[in-house]
């Protein structure tokens, strides 16, 4: 089996004032290439922490993560930046688009840091916006788009660097159920048609139902 994500004994301890909080207490998980995995659990169960560790936004206190065979926990800042740039794409609950950029510019933004020429950046951004159904809305700014459209822009942005793995943290959290279902259908479609590997964090069983496999977390551990 071709493994994209492999985590062994992943633990993360935060310092909150004088006390320590163990967000993760030794999580093992694997995600195969082309798999659509939902990470569910109540709030505080550590599911977002898992996503951040896999995405290279945070470092584990102990344990290891391999993405495409590269171990992350010992990486320096430079390697983590490269990892975020090349191997993963993020989709957030609150979209996190830059408000003064157009949809096209938002999608092209990650490529600017990768040193891709402007012409190619625009072309790839346009193609992806077409793909997520926003062809006619290229020049719109986030404030001129609905929540569902903004999340589609965010998905296009996450995919523009052709990552091995798409990480989505409550992607439907700010959307109503109908629009949320549309977004999930789009992700499912991308997963099926492009063999995109997906790891989606959610607390919503309806969202989790779109996944091939569900991993449950409780109190920082995988619930078997």
């Amino acid at each position, binding site marked *: 089996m071709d493994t994209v994500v492999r985590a062994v004994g992943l633990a993360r301890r935060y310092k909150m004032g004088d006390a320590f909080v163990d967000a993760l207490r030794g999580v093992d998980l694997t995600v195969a290439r082309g798999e659509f995995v939902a990470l569910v659990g109540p709030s505080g169960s550590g599911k977002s922490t898992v996503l*951040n560790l896999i*995405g290279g*936004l*945070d470092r584990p206190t102990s344990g290891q993560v391999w993405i495409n065979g590269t171990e992350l926990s010992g990486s320096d*800042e*430079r390697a983590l*930046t490269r990892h*975020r*740039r*090349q191997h993963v794409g*993020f989709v*957030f609950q609150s979209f*996190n*688009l*830059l408000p*003064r950029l157009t949809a096209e510019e938002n999608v092209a*933004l*990650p490529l*600017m*840091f*990768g*040193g891709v020429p*402007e012409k190619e950046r625009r072309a790839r951004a346009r193609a992806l916006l077409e793909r997520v159904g926003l062809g006619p809305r290229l020049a719109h700014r986030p404030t001129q788009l609905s929540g569902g459209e903004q999340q589609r822009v965010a998905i296009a*942005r996450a995919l523009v*660097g052709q990552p091995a793995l798409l990480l989505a943290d409550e992607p439907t959290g700010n959307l109503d159920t109908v629009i949320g279902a549309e977004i999930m259908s789009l992700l499912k479609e991308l997963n099926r048609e492009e063999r995109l590997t997906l790891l989606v964090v959610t607390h919503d069983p309806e969202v989790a139902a779109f996944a091939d496999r569900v991993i449950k977390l409780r109190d920082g551990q995988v619930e078997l």
Partner: protein
Amino acid sequence: MTLKDLAKTSLSNLGRHKVRTALSAVGVTVGILTIVTMLSLGVGVQQEVIRVFRGAGLETVRVRPVTEEQTPFTQFAEPERKVLITPALVEEMRARDDVVKVNAHIYLPRSANTFLRIGEHADEPSVTQVYVGGTPWLPSEPFAISPELIAGEELTDGAQGEIIVNASALEALGYGRAEFSDLIGQEIALVLKAPRGDVQDFTFRLVGIINAYDDFEKQNPRAYLGATGMLPLKAWWYNDPDILEREGYDALTIKAVSLNDAVQIVEQLEARNFDVESLKTILDTVNKTMVVLQTMLSSIGGLALLVASIGIANTMIMSVYERTREIGILKAVGASPGDIRLLFMAEASLIGLLGGVAGTIGGWLLGLGLNEGILAYLRWKEIPVTGTFFVVTGWLVALALVFATVVGLLAGLYPAARAARLDPLEALRYE
């Protein structure tokens, strides 16, 4: 990130807060304006000084004999001469290839009373002191203006028995301008009166009449003899026929072919212990003074720039706070700490550059205005000085812009480092 992306992104970021950007740049504008104005004043005055000096003859070298140091016992006597300007030295200088003209000067003491007489025309009490020494065309004083010949010709080098007078001298004797040309070639007597009561006539032939070329000349009758003509007067005055062998000439003016030749002559004569002076040495002193002045005035601008850089740093730190979430997003999509640092440094530098451009234009306009003001004041005061006192050169503009940018860059160092260090996860959670 390419340079083009960097410029585009930082310009667009600055454009979001136009008023804030402009206000932060104002400090730099004030500082650069001050510095540009001061330096342009320096450049302008320097150019003006050099222009005046060129006109006065930068190639001219002036030599004076060196006298013994005076002691309390000798302070009221004529000082003894140690290093003499001998006729041999004059000949040596005349023989040089890099010398255009040499004039030796002999002076009478200030207390000498000299009068002019032409035929029956004598004006004993009012015809005053005769100018002593060489011709007025290569005088021993710097900045003397060459006179205009209105009749006759110039005094020939080493001529004996020839004299030139100015218009005032003839007017004092009662001649009108119309009669001037008739007087050329006539005999003219120079009467020398010693304090001991002796009076001696020296007879010359009038070869030229010159115009009064300044206010002093207008009021003062003058006669010019050349060193050869002066020698008998001085010998009689001191009652010493060998005075040239004992004392040498009183001064020597050497006009070199070029400025470099003049500098060489100065060095060579200084090595032989002569008291040498050229406008070059004066010019160097003037330049040094200007540099000190410019440095002092520019430091006021420097102070303004220091304050400005604090302003820029403040703006950038505010900007980092405001854009914390944006920084988090940029890091999440693959911006490196270096990219973030570069972005904020570019913005700070651009604020500096912006202020620099405004300050340079402002300084240039202020210089133009001040120049007009100064010229108007000089005209009002009837001081006959014209020229450009504020000159903004290309290198000054380049220097100002680079300096302004560097001020912005330095001010941006800390905020940029702060932005680059932000933890992406915390930045993303920031509201």
